[in-house]
């Protein structure tokens, strides 16, 4: 039999017209909806863009960018927080450059995303911010140096963990200072703030709550009833009340707990305690989900090979459980990043709370109607940018992990 030649589909099943018909103008009601919603959409976008470009008062916001970035961190010491950023970019670059295929792709994606952001800020700095111009150049250079360094010497991958560990110490020392009155003089945490503080809180919260959460999750799955009940109670009580109450409670009770006078414990530390403990309870639930997803057979196989209970947990169960919950943990990180905005309740001036300061500056109040709308949009845009990028990365990660395990 002769093979019939394939023909192209008829006109109205392909091309722009088919798409329009399928997606916008399939029926009368559909067409009405399309016209109305396109109209509304255009109106909203034109209105918003018009307002942003013409009526909005951005000058006051622009004048306060340093507050938004670091709050009252001394102007002559800005090289220290930016030095930390440079350090992170260097190590991230090294890791991205040196890591192989597979998970390396994700790290490289993260690196390039950060690098693009740094590049934009560097360009802005070169034009508009003379005080930090060369510091941003340093950050960008560190990123590139790290990346190509990593490409050239993939061997550094072996010592990466130590480098990251050391960088934590260096970062803490840089931000707080070592004392004296020179370049490394101590900066009181009262002067910390802005986006720097938001990042510090989010990173410390997730990093410290990670081991705590694992411990709590294991406790909740322990076969020993006492340990189980204590873990369950702890997790459920912490999760029962919202973060803002724990921040408030920490600000009241942490000094009492440590039996020292309240002013000896900084608001930052209190906030960190609350954020970490709160995050740990949620982390525990995420990890527990992962633990439940590991089949019983894995445990049995490990025990049958003679591994001890602890070895089984550490080498077999946890690695699988944690891999399964990475997307959930990224989700939690996004949540925590957003939730750091609640530290206003303990009197910290994070990125969000700085906007309240700026809004009540006399110059802002002179502007008719204030600049609350401008501030809100700015805040929303910045938070959104980071949270959205993280969620996109998380979805990619989820897909890649899904492929990996199959």
């Amino acid at each position, binding site marked *: 039999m002769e093979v019939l030649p394939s023909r192209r589909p008829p006109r109205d099943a392909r091309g722009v017209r088919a798409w329009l018909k399928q997606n916008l103008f399939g029926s009368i009601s559909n067409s009405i909806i399309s016209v109305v919603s396109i109209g509304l959409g255009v109106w909203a976008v034109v209105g918003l863009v018009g307002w942003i470009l013409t009526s909005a008062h951005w000058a006051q916001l622009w004048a306060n960018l340093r507050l938004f970035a670091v709050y009252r961190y001394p102007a002559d010491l800005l090289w220290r927080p930016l030095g930390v950023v440079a350090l992170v970019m260097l190590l991230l670059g090294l890791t991205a450059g040196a890591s192989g295929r597979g998970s390396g792709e994700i790290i490289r994606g993260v690196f390039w995303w950060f690098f693009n952001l740094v590049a934009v800020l560097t360009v802005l700095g070169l034009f508009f911010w003379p005080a930090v111009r060369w510091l941003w150049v340093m950050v960008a250079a560190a990123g590139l140096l790290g990346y190509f360094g990593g490409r050239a010497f993939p061997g550094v991958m072996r010592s990466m963990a130590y480098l990251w560990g050391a960088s934590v110490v260096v970062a803490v020392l840089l931000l707080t200072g070592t004392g004296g009155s020179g370049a490394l003089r101590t900066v009181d945490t009262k002067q910390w703030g802005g986006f720097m503080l938001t990042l510090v809180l989010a990173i410390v919260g997730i990093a410290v709550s990670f081991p705590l959460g694992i411990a709590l999750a294991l406790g909740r799955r322990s076969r020993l009833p006492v340990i189980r009940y204590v873990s369950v109670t702890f997790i459920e009580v912490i999760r029962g009340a919202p973060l803002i109450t724990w921040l408030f409670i920490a600000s009241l009770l942490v000094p009492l707990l440590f039996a020292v006078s309240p002013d000896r414990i900084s608001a930052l530390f209190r906030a960190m305690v609350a954020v970490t403990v709160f995050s740990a309870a949620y982390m525990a639930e995420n990890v527990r989900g992962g633990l439940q997803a590991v*089949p019983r057979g894995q445990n049995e*196989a490990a025990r*049958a*090979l*003679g591994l*001890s209970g602890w*070895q089984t947990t550490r080498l077999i169960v946890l690695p699988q459980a944690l891999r399964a919950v990475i997307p959930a943990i990224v989700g939690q990180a996004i949540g925590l990043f957003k939730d750091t905005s609640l530290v206003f309740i303990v009197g910290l001036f994070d990125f969000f709370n700085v906007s309240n300061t700026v809004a009540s500056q006399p110059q802002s109040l002179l502007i008719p109607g204030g600049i609350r709308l401008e501030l809100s949009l700015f805040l929303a845009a910045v938070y959104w940018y980071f949270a959205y990028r993280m969620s996109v990365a998380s979805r990619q990660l989820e897909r890649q992990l899904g492929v*990996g395990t199959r």
Partner: protein
Amino acid sequence: MSEVAAPRGPVRADAPDGGTRIIEIDGLNKWFGEFHVLKDIHLSVNKGEVVVIIGPSGSGKSTLIRCINRLEEHQEGRIVVDGIELTDDVRNIDQVRRETGMVFQQFNLFPHLTVLDNVTLAPLRVRKWKKAQAEERAMYFLEKVGIPEQARKYPGQLSGGQQQRVAIARALTMEPKVMLFDEPTSALDPEVIGEVLDVMVTLAKEGMTMAVVTHEMGFAREVGDRVIFMDAGQIVEVGTPEHFFQNPREERTRAFLSKIL
């Protein structure tokens, strides 16, 4: 399930005299809650013997084999493996597990580790071998099961038959004195069962002590020294494969065999 007591008291599945007893189970009883899964089991296995345990599902055969390395805890009776009694003593349990290898129905390979890491994990962590030594032994056994070229892959990239062979190599690398097989071919596609059985046959012929729960009667016939039929938590009949497949004594055995052969 009829509660007919065995006519002459519990059937003893003792190993023939003259060998070295490596597994001794005496008066074993086990309950899951109120359910009596294992009833008065007496079973011993000599060094180098291949014991095949058959029986309908739910007869307790898997539970029995899992008691031998204490994946299941028994409530009554004695289990002695290579002269070590399984008690609440953690040290004894660890020793027994070290000396017994186990192969599971669902393979239970560790999906986050490569084949080689799966195989070397226990030797490194439990036997505290050097890495080079562990990998050398691992490769030896992977070659033995016929898949050395897959060593760097992850279990998820292998077929079921290959995975089960890795699982066997993983157990063998610990150089156990006894190998326990818990329905090793039940989860496999029919066309790959053969490759796993071949490995097991070779192993049996090399003199490994094996306790095998399986439905593969061909395997039982070819290398089994003794076949044990279990039903409703007790040993119903014991015998050589020839005896077993040609003229089983018990009615229940006959009924079971007629269904599966």
